[in-house]
């Protein structure tokens, strides 16, 4: 990426949003003085200077819940992406590099993973592992393993056919060296770009789990849960769903945008 890319206003904006989100996850206290866990004044107050996003149905400051929710949401998305990325890439790498029956077997396993409805898979995994942010994140991550594996495999196969891979064998490199030093680094860019997209989609999937009642246990502030809980009051208190929704959209869009930049550069 050259410097011109970084100067595009959309890229700057997306980066700022993500940096703010990460900051909010690390030091939420920087952004708000309200307690996200205990009610202050009345419930369902509309936005004001005191409560920027209003208060929720229990009377807690919504803005501070969104800020404190950043940690859970980003952590969840991160875990989900890591599960998919690590497991998927390893599977794809082995399949692509090894070929033959192992490839066929691994790809059929991927088919199986893809043919079970992902939501059913993640709900089952949550019930199996128990409720909680990390478990929900793992469940979401498992559903993306197949996508990562497929991408990694096709990357590995296309990179393997490049001359420098054979040249590396020519330079006396062992199979493992070729895999780790030559194939893997050159296969990763699209995989990383996918990870960024998945990061956004994991936030959304986690929020869907919250909607269905399988998300983080209350009173943990978590974005999906915040929206899911507030949806009942949309007719009376629209800001409860719309404002946190806007925050999710901003963060997910930023992650996607940066991912596309990475992808474009990789092409």
């Amino acid at each position, binding site marked *: 990426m050259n410097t011109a890319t970084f100067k595009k206003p959309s890229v700057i904006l997306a980066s700022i949003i993500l940096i703010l989100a990460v900051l909010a996850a690390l030091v939420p206290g920087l952004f708000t003085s309200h307690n996200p866990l205990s009610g202050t004044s009345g419930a369902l107050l509309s936005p004001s200077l005191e409560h920027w996003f209003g208060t929720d149905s229990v009377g807690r400051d919504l803005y501070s819940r969104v800020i404190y929710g950043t940690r859970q949401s980003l952590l969840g998305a991160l875990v989900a992406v890591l599960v998919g990325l690590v497991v998927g890439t390893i599977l794809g790498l082995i399949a692509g590099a090894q070929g033959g029956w192992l490839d066929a077997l691994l790809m059929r396993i991927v088919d*199986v993973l893809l*043919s*079970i*409805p992902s939501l059913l898979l993640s709900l089952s995994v949550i*019930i199996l592992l128990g409720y909680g942010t990390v478990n929900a994140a793992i469940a979401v991550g498992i559903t993306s393993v197949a996508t990562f594996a497929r991408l990694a495999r096709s990357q590995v196969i296309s990179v393997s056919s490049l001359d420098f891979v054979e040249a590396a064998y020519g330079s006396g490199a062992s199979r493992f060296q070729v895999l780790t030093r030559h194939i893997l680094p050159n296969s990763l860019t699209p995989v990383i770009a996918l990870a960024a997209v998945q990061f956004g989609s994991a936030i959304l999937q986690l929020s*869907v789990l919250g909607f269905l009642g399988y998300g983080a246990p209350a009173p943990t502030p978590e974005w*999906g849960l915040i*929206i899911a809980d507030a949806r009942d009051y949309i007719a009376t208190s629209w800001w409860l769903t719309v404002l946190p929704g806007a925050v*999710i*959209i901003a963060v997910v869009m930023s992650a996607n945008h940066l991912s596309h930049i990475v992808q474009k550069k990789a092409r």
Partner: protein
Amino acid sequence: MTARQLWLRIGQALLVLLATYTLAFILLSALPSDAIMARYASPDLGLSSDEINAIRAEYGADKPLIVQYFTSLFGFLTGNFGYSVQTGASIASMVAEALPGTLALAISAFVLACIWALLIAVAASFSRGLRGFVLGLPSLMVSLPSFWIGIILIQLVSFKLGWVPVIGASPVQSLILPALTLSIPIAAPLAQVLVRSIEDVERQPFISVVKARGASRSRIFFGNVLRNAILPALTIAGVLFGELVGGAVVTEAVFGRAGIGQMTVNAVANRDTPVLMAVVVIAATLYVLINLLVDLLHPVLDPRVRRKERA
């Protein structure tokens, strides 16, 4: 595709189905609590654990897992889907009631999504001024939580503007908002792939050659670019199907539509394994069929593939 390849492909598909079935069975059996508990341990029935165990024996749920596995597999192979433990309803009739609605939803959402994707692609190619805005749309669409879209659409379009009823709507009316809701997250990746592959195709030398024939922009786009650009979009259709099913769960829940999605959520909540196995079988079969269809469609759209397979 030669007949041999087709058979091979079908054989592979059946293998995947069986593996999916087995994996799902193991996964669901491993879940804590079960359908019998979920139904009969409910406190308002006031049943003792002895009574519940007797009921469990009645359902055959006390037999070893391997026996249950083969019983259920044999049932599916012979077309006997069994009964929901939670409600006692025949699963075949549940599916018969739920599937058409879900298919109608999924198909209309998919068609809508294709239209959005095309519109976005066309707008991005034709209007330079709006290009930046239009290209941002898929990012936005993919960033919206689907239940959130649904709830807001209901509030705005139905309750505030009164354009479409949500309650007591005719079958066509009741399809409009859910299909719209479901189409948005599906349209986004489709549009992204389409826009990207249009960009790729537009860079191809043959487009310059067509331009050199004096072709107009619309002829270049509709007559030459589009068909080439659709091929990569076709390949992700199979993957998008998973999204459709997942999205259908949420959409059906929000709109209170009967369908496979709602059936799935209810069945998960009640650990209703027989129903879930049916859902898995249906979804996996659809998945396999759609991918088979994509494979078969590819040579129709792409003559290059036809040749290779004949050789």
